[in-house]
Structure formats: structure tokens, C-alpha cells
């Protein structure tokens, strides 16, 4: 076990000390969020690129930067490590961080397989440490509103959950770069592996079930409609059953406009949350009688769509992204770490997400 040496960097009293492994785009969101949470003191950041590590440290006033995360774990006295590197590197880095005696907050997925996740979980539990996977989208406002609607029975008994993400990642940007293919193209689900955990945990969150054994059958159509050798898959259409409840996961690079929506249909209505243009729309029985209900629903829908349009412009001006849930997730996570309470993402949620991703990828479930 690597024992943390006396810290080279100042430790502030009453603040949790944190280090981050990885200085890329997701790291920017984590560091920005932590900067705004007053009780966190980021003391180190590491990246394989010295320029990126230094740039990130300077940008967020982090006192230490490293190109070797092990050296950072040794030299910085930290309570928590954020692992923000590409998914294929998580197993090794998370294990090293746990070995050094730190709690770990890791970007999804914790591991590329359920067995890998289970091993790391057991390893953390044996050391009485926390291992927490980021499920940030569960904490976005529209999803929380959707939760309230479902929990308050305004749409009755849940019968169908549909999680859909449309992203034009073939059209350009890091995932479409043929010069240096993004490392995620080599993951089991190709580039969709970057997003599949989000789709899986949101589906499971809204599908009523007592145990993961209630989930099934699962059938998944993984396709590469756009062709070429860069993308392994660019489209997923999956059916996930849980007793009488139908669940569907859709991912596509071939539609317009981009969207990320969760639709829950129940015996008494439909609720729809959109995360890229944050809205939550409800169609339900209204207390105005059978004939006027469609009109009231239409008016409510029109109001939601109009406010979504203006809201999108406003959010653009305010520089707000779909990562808004990260702030709440981290706030609740650190609260749990400080008080010893339950973290906002439980073992069961991480475990089931990982199992569902495995099931979606299993050869026997492919169509």
C-alpha cells in the first residue's frame, strides 16, 4: 500500500482535500463544480501530458500538477480521488487509488464489465472506502421533476420507460476524427460505451423492479448503419422487460435534432423529460372533465415547449450545459463522505447498471 507522505501542498482545515486523475474535458466539469462547492480543496491534478496537467492546474488554481498519478497519490494528502480518465484505464487507476487509502469518485463506467466492477467494489469495501460512480444525469432538474411526477402517481402505474439519446457524433468532433481514432472506439460497445451507462441507469431508475432478477428478457440490436471501419456501432435499439413493464433504450447518430429524453408512460398519463433542452412535460387526466382535458394538456404542452425554446437561449447565454446534475451529485456525495451517510448513488444502482450493460452486450441477447 502506498502511504501518503506529508503533503507538499497546503491543507485547509474543515475542507476535504481532493485530487483529480485526468485533465480532459470531463475534468473541467468536475473541477469547475468543485471550485463552486466551498468545502472542497483540490490539491493536485495529474495527466499524462505535462502541458495539460499544468494548464489545468493553473486554470483552476490547483497547487500541484503531475504526470504520474501514483506520484500524486504519494505526495498529496487527499481524502478523495476523482478518476476522470478514459474508461479502459479505470480498473487499474481505481485500484491504485483505493490501495492508497482514498475514497474514489469515478466517471462511468467504473469498469468495462460487471465482474470488474464487483472486484473493485469488494476491494473498496474491504478497506472501508467509498467507491462512487458518477450518475450525473439522474440529478438534472428535468429528471428530478420526472421522479416527482412518477412518485406522486400522477401518471398512475408505470407501464413503459423509453430512454433515447440522439447525438450527431458522426458529423464531426473528437469521435469522428479518422486521423487519430478516439480510444473509446475500441471499447466493447464502441463509442456507444461512452453513453450506455447513462441510458442504463436512467432506464433502471424509472422501471419498477425489486431485484435485478426481475429484469429480462433483454434484447439489443447493435448496428453500424453509417458503415465504415471507424465506428463499431452507431446505433442501438434495445428492449428491456421487467415483468409487465416495457423498457426501451435508443441511441442514434443518424437523426436530427440531438436529444436526450426519458419518457415514462403510465396507466393515467405520460411524462417526458428532455435533458439537452431542459423541460419536463406532463400529459395526464385533468380535473376539468373528459372533454376539456385534451385542451388543458395541449395548453400546458405549448407552455412547456415555449419556455423550453426561450430557456435554451437563456441557458446558452448563461453558459449552462447538460452537466448541471454533476453539481448536485457531487454536493450530495461529499455530504455523504463528510457525515458518513449514504451516497446519492448506491451500490445497487451501480451494480444493476453494470449488469444491464453486460446483458445488452451479451451475444445471446443480440438481435
Amino acid at each position, binding site marked *: 500500500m502506498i502511504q501518503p507522505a506529508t503533503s507538499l501542498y497546503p491543507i485547509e482545515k474543515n475542507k476535504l482535500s481532493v485530487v483529480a486523475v485526468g485533465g*480532459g*474535458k470531463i475534468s*473541467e466539469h468536475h473541477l469547475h463544480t468543485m471550485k463552486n462547492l466551498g468545502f472542497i480543496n483540490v490539491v493536485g491534478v495529474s495527466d499524462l*501530458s*505535462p*502541458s*495539460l496537467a499544468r*494548464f489545468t492546474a493553473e*486554470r483552476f488554481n490547483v497547487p500541484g500538477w503531475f504526470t504520474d498519478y501514483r506520484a500524486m497519490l504519494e505526495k498529496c494528502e487527499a481524502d478523495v480521488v476523482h478518476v476522470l480518465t478514459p474508461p479502459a484505464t479505470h480498473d487499474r487507476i481505481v485500484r491504485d487509488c483505493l490501495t492508497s487509502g482514498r475514497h474514489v469518485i469515478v466517471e462511468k463506467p467504473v469498469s468495462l464489465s460487471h465482474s470488474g466492477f464487483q472486484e473493485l467494489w469488494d476491494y473498496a469495501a474491504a478497506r472501508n472506502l467509498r467507491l462512487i460512480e458518477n450518475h450525473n444525469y439522474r440529478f438534472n432538474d428535468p429528471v428530478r421533476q420526472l421522479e416527482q411526477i412518477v412518485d406522486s402517481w400522477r401518471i398512475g402505474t408505470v407501464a413503459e420507460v423509453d430512454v433515447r439519446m440522439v447525438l450527431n457524433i458522426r458529423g464531426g*468532433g*473528437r469521435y469522428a*476524427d*479518422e*486521423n*487519430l481514432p478516439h480510444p473509446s472506439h475500441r471499447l466493447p460497445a464502441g463509442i456507444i460505451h461512452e453513453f450506455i451507462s447513462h441510458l442504463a441507469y436512467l432506464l433502471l431508475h424509472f422501471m419498477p423492479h425489486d431485484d435485478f432478477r426481475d429484469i429480462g428478457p433483454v434484447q439489443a440490436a447493435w448496428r453500424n448503419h453509417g458503415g465504415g471501419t471507424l465506428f463499431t456501432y452507431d446505433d442501438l435499439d434495445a428492449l428491456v422487460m421487467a415483468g409487465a413493464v416495457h423498457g426501451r433504450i435508443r441511441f442514434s447518430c443518424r437523426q436530427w435534432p440531438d436529444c436526450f429524453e426519458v419518457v415514462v408512460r403510465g396507466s393515467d398519463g405520460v411524462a417526458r423529460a428532455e435533458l439537452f433542452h431542459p423541460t419536463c412535460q406532463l400529459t395526464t387526466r385533468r380535473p376539468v372533465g373528459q372533454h376539456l382535458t385534451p385542451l388543458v394538456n395541449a395548453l400546458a404542452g405549448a407552455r412547456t415547449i415555449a419556455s423550453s425554446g426561450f430557456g435554451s437561449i437563456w441557458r*446558452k*447565454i*448563461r*453558459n449552462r450545459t447538460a452537466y448541471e446534475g454533476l453539481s448536485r451529485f457531487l454536493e450530495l456525495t461529499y455530504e455523504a463522505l463528510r457525515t458518513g451517510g449514504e451516497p446519492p448513488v448506491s451500490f445497487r444502482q451501480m451494480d444493476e447498471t453494470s449488469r444491464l450493460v453486460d446483458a445488452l452486450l451479451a451475444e445471446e441477447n443480440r438481435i
Partner: protein
Amino acid sequence: MRLLITGAGGFLGRYVVAEAVAHGHRVRALLRPAARTFPPAWEGNPRVQVVCGDLRDAKGVAALLEGVDGVIHLAASKSGDLYEQFGGTVIATENLLSAMVDAALSRIVVTSSFSVYEYLALPQWSVLDESTSLAADPLVRDEYCQTKLVQERIVLECADAHDWRCVVLRPGVIYGRDNLWTARLGMQVNDRWWIRTGASAPLPLTYVENCAEAIVLATEYEGPQRRLVLNVVDNETPTQREYLNALRNQVTPRPRIVPVAWGVMRVLARLAWLTNWVCFKGTAKVPGLFVPSRLHARCKPLRYTNQKIVSLLGWQPRYSWQEGIQRSLSPLDAADFPLADQAQPGAQALLVEQVQ
């Protein structure tokens, strides 16, 4: 000299390859793996070796440097978010520098940009030269400014540490074929409508072929200073109005220009900035022209000088700005012509003639 030219397939790179060959050098032209085409003149030319690779991947970089005497590093990323630009500009440079250290190479020319300078604090009509301060707050500028600053820093630090011959060239606005519009003119709404602000502001132009010659001369520099930072600007710096009028007359359909006075734009940007700070603590995202530091970087009336590069490298821009526009709009592209070299002194003159 045997030169590795990175970014050789780009807008500037194609002309630098031609110029390097014209100066008698042998060139290894690095194209990105997905690049489908390069000038036909390179094919079969014994002085040009075309190789493909991506500098962001450290693995293949050492092989690119085998048998090379110096590097002209033009490769950079201008589009995408901060992290895409950081990868294409900074990490690519970091890998190149590391491989140069391993290969014991000690000569590099790097193209940076005028975007690294501080503009907001500069008085109007003052002279911008190599002694002008660097951007004080790059985070409120753009990703290009941020990544170019980091790139310059790591190049100069590495050159200092290993006592390399290193020239950092900061070209003003490089214009040429398919690159006649510049953000320093204001804002291009679409192909037809342009918003121009700062009509009397001189433009720090350098025509692409002139700039290519400056780059090759920098590679050949053997003077006493081992580390140099030089601005690249042609002799004439036409005003925005002059340049746009010349351009407008030669482009079809003829664009419509909406002039906005520099003073008015400054006040609007200042108001937007104040509103942003008062109402949103500076977190709001507004168009570039409404961010004072970006507006000043693009459109502030300043004077420019090429005294240092002219005196140190003996560079004399070959084409005037009007000739530059003319050559850019000519159906014949100089980069596509058979490569001239010192063995055929008449060839370059012939090439000039053909284009005009």
C-alpha cells in the same frame, strides 16, 4: 537541409513545401492520415517525401525525425472545443519536442499567431511589435489564443533547456486562396452579408506565399541569436475598408457590407461586459464581438511593423496585398505548379508569370 514539415497538407503548409524546395531543401511533408490529397507536383519529386501521421500519437513521431536536420512545425488545430484544440496544437507539439530531444535535433521553426498578444490594454494606434505584452487573461479570449500561448511556452522552454536554434514566428493574418475572409474584418453573417467594424483599422496581413518564404528563411537563419520571436507582416497594411472594397469587387455575388463604427461597437461591447458582470458575475456567454478583449483583438486600430524580421532574416515580401488577392482568386494555384528549385533559377519566375 533535410526538413520535416508538419501540417504540410494545410493552407500554409503546401506553400511552405514549395518554398523549401525552391530554396534547395529536401522535405519530408507530414500529412494527417485521413488527408486524401496533396499537390500533384509533390508526386515523384525526389526532393519531397510524403508521409502520413498524427503528432497527437506519440508512438510514430520518432520515425518521422529520422534523417532530418530541422523541423518546420505548422500543424495546429483551429477548430473544435478547447480540448480538441489542445490536443491538435499543444499535445502534438509536446510529442514532437520530446521526440526531437530523443533524436538530438536542435533546430525548429514554429508558427504561432498574433492572437497571443494583449490588445485590450494597448492604446489605439500604438505599434504592435514583438515587445508587446502577451494576453493577460487568455481565459476570456478564445481557445486558439489559449492553446497558442501554451504551445509557445513549451517550445521556448524546451529550446532554452536544450539550447536549440528556435524561431517562433507570429504571422498576422495569413490570407490566400480560400482564406480571404478574416475575423479581423468583423463578422461574416453569411455569404452575402458582412458586418464590418473598425473601417480605418490597418490589417496585419501577410500573403500566404510571402509568409511561406519568411518561414523558410527563419529555418535557414544562422545569426547569433539562438532563440527568436518574430512577427510576420507584409510591408503594406491596408485598412479594413481598402481590403474589403478590393475583395468585394472581385467576389460574386457581391457581398453586402453593414458598417458599424468602431466607437459604437466598443461601447456596445463595454455595455455587454458590464451587464454580464453586474447580472451574471461574468459567467454569461456572449458573441465574440461583444467581449471587449476579443473585439479589441480583432478590430482595434493599431500599427504594425516587420522591422525585426526584415533586418534579421532579410525577408522582403514578394507580393503586394493587391497581388496577393489577385493570385488568391486566380484559377491557377501556385502550390499546384511543378516545384522550382535552385537548380532551375528561371522556374520560380515562370511560375509567378503563369499565376498572374
